[in-house]
């Protein structure tokens, strides 16, 4: 009791004195103060409920309190509306304004917590958001294919381009002029899983960062996102060219497809999300630029959370099955199955009750 009283006493020193007792109504000389004293108990009850909600203690509130919340909120709101017209008590008005806006944040706040939201996200919200990005996905896919082609053609015309596109360390064997055996060795498997999980965690952290960058750059009308796509895919094109020179392109494709179908799909989605925002800002249509950007941003943010999940899966695939499974056919089977899964999940999975409308709130 004493402990609780001390901070309150300090608060009282710092802030204006707080009313602790409510004097009887007859004592008030002013009509507006009588109005206030009549309703004060309701305001305090609302404040107590709101404070408990803000502290995340909603479970500790009684059912009666929770049921009363909307009524108390409306009472406070209508008290505020009438006091604005009848009272000149600035302190009471300020208190009510803040109380009503705090209550407003709670009554109209996020309806779901993180986990409730996650459930609705996995069960339809994500795929609906991906479908809402349809045109952007097609554009980004075209740009990515073009990027790979450009990479291939550039290296074909001048081998020096390879060194500019593919960042290589001193020990890098994947360079023009490498023998077939050297290249084939890079597609091989590890003997055990030692170290691979660290590798997976590193890959995830790195790839997710790239995807978030691709999304965030979409803010500049989507152009930088597309440039990033071209750059990444040109690198892939150059690698394909290199392995094609030694007749290993099918093996490389199998090696890449294990995680690549998931990872490239994720990169595709993040590029498309960036482009979606950029397009909404460049061509907002009937909405204001800010509203259009906001709507597009919320829709593509959903996709981006999904991309982070995809990157986790891709990193696991990249570190384990790709390094442990050797056969070209098996690698294609894993990669193909993942691709089929994603396509089915995004475009065929439409749970009942979930509509595309919730992707565009």
């Amino acid at each position: 009791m004493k402990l609780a009283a001390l901070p309150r006493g300090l608060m009282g020193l710092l802030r204006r004195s707080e009313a602790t007792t409510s004097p009887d109504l007859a004592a008030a000389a002013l009509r507006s103060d009588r109005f206030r004293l009549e309703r004060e108990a309701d305001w305090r009850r609302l404040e107590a409920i709101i404070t408990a909600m803000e502290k995340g203690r909603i479970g500790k509130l009684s059912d009666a309190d929770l049921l009363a919340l909307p009524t108390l909120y409306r009472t406070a709101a209508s008290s505020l509306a009438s006091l604005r017209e009848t009272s000149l008590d600035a302190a009471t008005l300020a208190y009510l304004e803040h109380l009503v806006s705090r209550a407003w944040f709670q009554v109209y706040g996020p309806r779901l917590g993180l986990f409730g939201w996650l459930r609705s996200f996995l069960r339809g919200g994500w795929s609906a958001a991906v479908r809402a990005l349809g045109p952007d996905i097609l554009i980004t896919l075209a740009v990515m294919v073009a990027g790979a082609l450009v990479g291939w053609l550039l290296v074909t015309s001048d081998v020096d381009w390879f060194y500019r596109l593919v960042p290589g360390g001193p020990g890098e064997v994947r360079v023009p002029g490498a023998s077939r055996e050297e290249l084939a060795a890079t597609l091989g498997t590890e003997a055990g899983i030692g170290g691979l999980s660290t590798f997976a965690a590193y890959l995830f952290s790195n790839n997710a960062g790239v995807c978030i960058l691709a999304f965030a750059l979409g803010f500049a009308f989507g152009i930088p996102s597309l440039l990033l796509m071209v750059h990444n895919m040109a690198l892939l094109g150059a690698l394909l060219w290199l392995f094609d020179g030694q007749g290993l392109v099918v093996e490389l494709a199998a090696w890449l497809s294990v995680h690549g179908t998931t990872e490239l799909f994720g990169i595709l989605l993040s590029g498309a999300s960036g482009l979606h925002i950029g397009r909404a800002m460049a061509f907002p249509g009937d909405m204001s630029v800010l509203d259009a950007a906001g709507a597009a941003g919320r829709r593509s943010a959903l996709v981006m959370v999904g991309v982070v999940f995809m990157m986790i899966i891709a990193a696991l695939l990249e570190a384990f099955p790709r390094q442990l499974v050797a056969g070209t056919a098996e690698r294609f089977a894993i990669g193909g199955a993942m691709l089929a899964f994603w396509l089915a999940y995004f475009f065929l999975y439409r749970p009942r009750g979930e509509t595309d409308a919730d992707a565009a709130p």
Partner: protein
Amino acid sequence: MTASALPRAEQRRRVITTPEGLALPLVIASRGARAGALILDVMIILFALITFHIVLIAVAGGLLDTAGSSISNAPTGAAEFLQILLIIGVFLSWYGYFLVQELGPRGATLGKRILGIRIAARGQARLTPEAVIARNLLRDIEVFYPLVFLVVSAVSALAGEDTGPMIWAAVGWFALFLLLPFFNRDGLRAGDIIAGTWVVEAPRVRLAEALSTTQAARGTSATSGARYTFGPAELGIYGIRELQVLERLLRDGQEQALVTVHQTICTKIGWEPGAGDERAFLEAFYAALRAKLEKDMRFGKRKADKFS
């Protein structure tokens, strides 16, 4: 509050309309408060991560000594597990810290709460998880990449390396993001624009005493027993603005200020200023003036200040 700060604070006031049709005033958080909150949050994350590292090293230091970072001499077993824990931990704390807290009922990270600000959806929309996610994903390219980039290029320029025009183009580009909040009225950063959010002040205001419940408010002083009554001419001098200044003085209760104001009012209404009963006089005057002004208000007359 200085003279120049007042209009700036006024500029940050916005009004939102609730679904009930009630206009609620909001104050946009100042850019300084937001930067401060971000610095606090980053420091909290860094501090937590460093503590986590130190604890890990203290507990399992021997394991990490032999651990390498590259794949060729990768660690195994327990050390590997620890490394994964670290990598995932850094990633999760970086993004999770902001997401979990801003999705919570307070709509604010610890740093924001300390500075009394929170995020809210612009207009009368509901704050959604998507909005919170969108605004947090953009923070990296808005703030951290530019800062890292600026520091790196500044260092390399100082070291006499050839930076070239590309660097300056990039600096300008990043500066655009970093300085975006200064180019719009609402102090929106790129993440806010994308998410449809803004950051507003969330002060705690306590309900103050009703002022008209004292004995003095009904005209009779409790200390001296004097009875104060004011006529229409005496109450007609002041308006709402003066009334609310007087309210603030009465609530703050600084004796020196009360004495001064007592003298001013007495001179103004032509009374002989006494001494020792200032508070009772002012309470009586306040109650009488407010009663008159509120009555006028009910009849649709608002006297904004003494000049009107």
